[in-house]
């Protein structure tokens, strides 16, 4: 059993009359990839937004390691070691790849808001940025302006930015969305490498990728969790077959 990096208990989120997330409890362990799957509108992105702090839960608790972060704003959660990528690519489109990632490294440096001395002088930041760019497979592209990158490269960039903040847990919302076969292969390999020394929570619709990557699986439907456990257990769970995986019969 690995150390728990992130634990959420009985999270609830209502949008007016709609319970987008209800009574969701989830553990994410260091060294593991925990995949969350479920049909459109199941509440997966809402769950990620609750965990990252972009939405506040109506009820429930979130612990990052031993710290209760339920009341933390998103930036404070990030500084506490939580990194995330969005379902829709969210980068600084007018800055170079290097500047994008350097900013991420700066956010976690010892003096992120220093007002004197140029950014060049923080060599530690530059080194961390260069490492993250290399690990995300973008070496050689660091001077390119981000909005000139291909869609796949932008997703890599987003992961590089997350890496540069040196998080303990990474939340990925559909990292493979809109990606071609060969691009997807690269990202899958990259995601598989993220769990070393970290916890990863991934939401993904691509079942092949999910079963390839996941160490643990949670299935959501209509805001609730209908099954959670090891992938082979969940795969054969009757409620899951009925509700969801039936659509993916040949995969499951």
């Amino acid at each position, binding site marked *: 059993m690995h150390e728990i990096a992130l634990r959420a208990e009985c999270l609830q989120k209502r*949008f007016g009359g709609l319970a987008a997330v209800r009574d969701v409890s989830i553990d994410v362990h260091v060294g593991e990839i925990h995949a969350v799957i479920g049909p*459109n509108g199941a509440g997966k*992105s809402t769950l990620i*937004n609750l965990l*990252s702090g*972009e*939405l*506040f839960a109506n009820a429930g608790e979130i612990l990052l390691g031993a710290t209760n972060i339920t009341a933390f*704003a*998103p*930036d*404070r959660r*990030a*500084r506490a070691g939580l*990194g*995330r990528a*969005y*379902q*829709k690519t*969210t*980068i*600084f*489109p*007018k*800055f170079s790849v290097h*500047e994008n990632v350097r*900013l*991420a490294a*700066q*956010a*976690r*440096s010892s*003096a*992120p*808001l*220093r*007002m*004197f*001395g*140029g*950014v060049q002088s*923080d060599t530690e930041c530059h080194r961390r940025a260069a490492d993250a760019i290399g690990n995300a497979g973008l070496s050689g592209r660091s001077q390119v302006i981000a909005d000139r990158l291909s869609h796949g490269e932008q997703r890599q960039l987003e992961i590089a*930015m997350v890496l540069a*903040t040196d998080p303990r847990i990474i939340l990925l919302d559909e990292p493979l969305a809109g990606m071609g076969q060969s691009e997807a292969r690269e990202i899958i390999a990259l995601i598989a490498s993220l769990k070393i020394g970290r916890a990863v929570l991934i939401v993904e619709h691509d079942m092949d990728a999910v079963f390839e990557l996941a160490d643990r699986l949670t299935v959501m439907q209509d805001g609730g969790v209908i099954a959670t456990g090891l992938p082979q257990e969940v795969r054969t769970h009757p409620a899951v077959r009925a509700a969801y995986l039936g659509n993916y019969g040949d995969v499951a």
Partner: protein
Amino acid sequence: MFEMNATRLRVWLFTLACLIAAIALPFLAPTYYVQFFAKALIMGMLAMALNLVVGHGGLVSLCHAAFFGLAGYVLALLSPRYDAASLLTTFPLAVLSSAAAGLVIGALALRTRGIYFIMVTLAFGEMLFFFFHDTKVAGGSDGIFINVRPEIAVAGRQLLDLDKPITFYFFVLACLVGVVALLTMVVRSPFGHALAAARDNERRARSLGFPIFRIRLIAFALSGGLAGVAGYLAAAQFGFVAPQMLGWHQSATVLVMVLIGGLRSVTGPLVGALVLIGLEEVLKAHLDNWKLAEGLIIIGIVVMLPNGIRQIWPMIFGSSPEVPVDAGRAEAEHAVAEARHA
């Protein structure tokens, strides 16, 4: 690499040439032009201060004239009637008052975004305007005179006297160099990069761990303080302050200077101020209805220049991904984003 250095060298040489010309000016030109140029440089300072929040922070403020005017009023209220005020105490006090006003107004206005931010800053600016206009604190709508300009005196000996036009001019020039140096340093620092990051993608900057509100508030207060530097100098130059100094007209004029000069550089707005004030001077001398001509020319410049309007548009009407602070709208926007994706 070599090319980089060559451009850099050119920039440095150009800056040096401008500085030498500015230093030589009072020895070559008649006093009228020296005073006129000093006035233009002061407005340039105000425009550069404003651009820290507009160009680098993506926050279109319409209350910077209030910071400008407030510092002027502080000088006026601290000046003895028949004596020179001490520069060393009134200058920092005036600048700090403007920065403090920036801190308070920023703390409230920065909870809104886009067009709402503009309206809230406008409202606060007008509040300060009417405070000086409608109360007897400082002469009401008639304004108040500063009979003797500030000085630095040690043990009765006068070291610096702003009453002398040439001294005043060089003091303005020194302040200008200081403001440019400070803004350049801030814009290039990690803080400045974080400010620009929040402008380009607030949601991403926040989820990386940047405290957006604090960053913007610091920038807003700093910008207010620098507007105060300009306001102090303007009040000292005219020897008079009136509520018009704080009005939205003034704020809008400075915004036009920023648009003309471009949003992305530190000194662009200074150029914008020189162009606008120079244009006004020329038109005034040659045309009866010069305001009409000026308006048309400004519209022409702002529309034709690639920098101005196109960059300010998304700040007002929001095309970049932004997360409003209040939860209701945040969620609504989130829903839209998700719906678009699906």
